[in-house]
């Protein structure tokens, strides 16, 4: 019973963070659209992921698609790497670190 409750809390917190990130990302897109044309430096970045289940990877890819400046492009066949397209990438490591800390850690918790 408590296990279900913890899981429910984890899922809710993930959903809340996801909604907040969606709003932030739309504002970021708006800023980069209305700003200077040359400001965007897009890139394709490989993000190593450590999720076991297909559902977890799908959730991560969906979350990444709707968060600031990133869209998932491809998942390698062994589910170990997620290729993302980044709208404005000053540094690849920063993007990877933010995805890992915001979403992957939480999805891992839910996977158990």
């Amino acid at each position, binding site marked *: 019973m408590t296990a279900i409750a913890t899981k429910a809390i984890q899922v809710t917190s993930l959903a809340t963070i996801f909604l907040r990130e*969606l*709003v932030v*990302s*739309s504002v970021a*897109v*708006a800023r980069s*659209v*209305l700003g200077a*044309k*040359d400001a*965007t*430096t*897009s*890139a*394709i*970045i*490989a993000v190593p992921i450590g999720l076991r289940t297909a559902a977890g990877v799908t959730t991560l*890819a*969906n979350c990444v*698609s*709707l968060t600031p*400046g990133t*869209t*998932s*492009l*491809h998942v*390698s*066949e062994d589910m170990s790497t997620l*290729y993302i*397209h980044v*709208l404005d*990438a000053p540094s*690849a490591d920063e993007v990877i670190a933010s995805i890992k800390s915001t979403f992957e850690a939480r999805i891992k918790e839910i996977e158990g």
Partner: protein
Amino acid sequence: MTHVITNYLTGILIVIGAAFALVASVGLLRLPEFYTRMHAASKAGTLGACVMLIAVAVYTDDTAVASRALAGVIFFLLTAPISAHLLAKAAYAAGYPLWEGSVHDEMPPRAAHKDE
């Protein structure tokens, strides 16, 4: 009294949603290539449509209508990234090149073709 609040809230929400839709389409117009345009359509466009559907849910007195509107929001939030992902993957696999402003391409050659 509650009607006054819902009227103001609905008005604010639909204007915000329409503004996001406009930003998304201006993004389609101004951004340099397909992959970056997809960012605008898949984020700002989705949020715009969702905010306007939420406005309907706020406005109506009928719970059946409100729950259908929220179901529509959830459906749209789930499907928009999937269609964007599929389209980007298909375009990459078909060899549409990245823009000159792109700084990295870490995707291995022909990775997108393997599982098709």
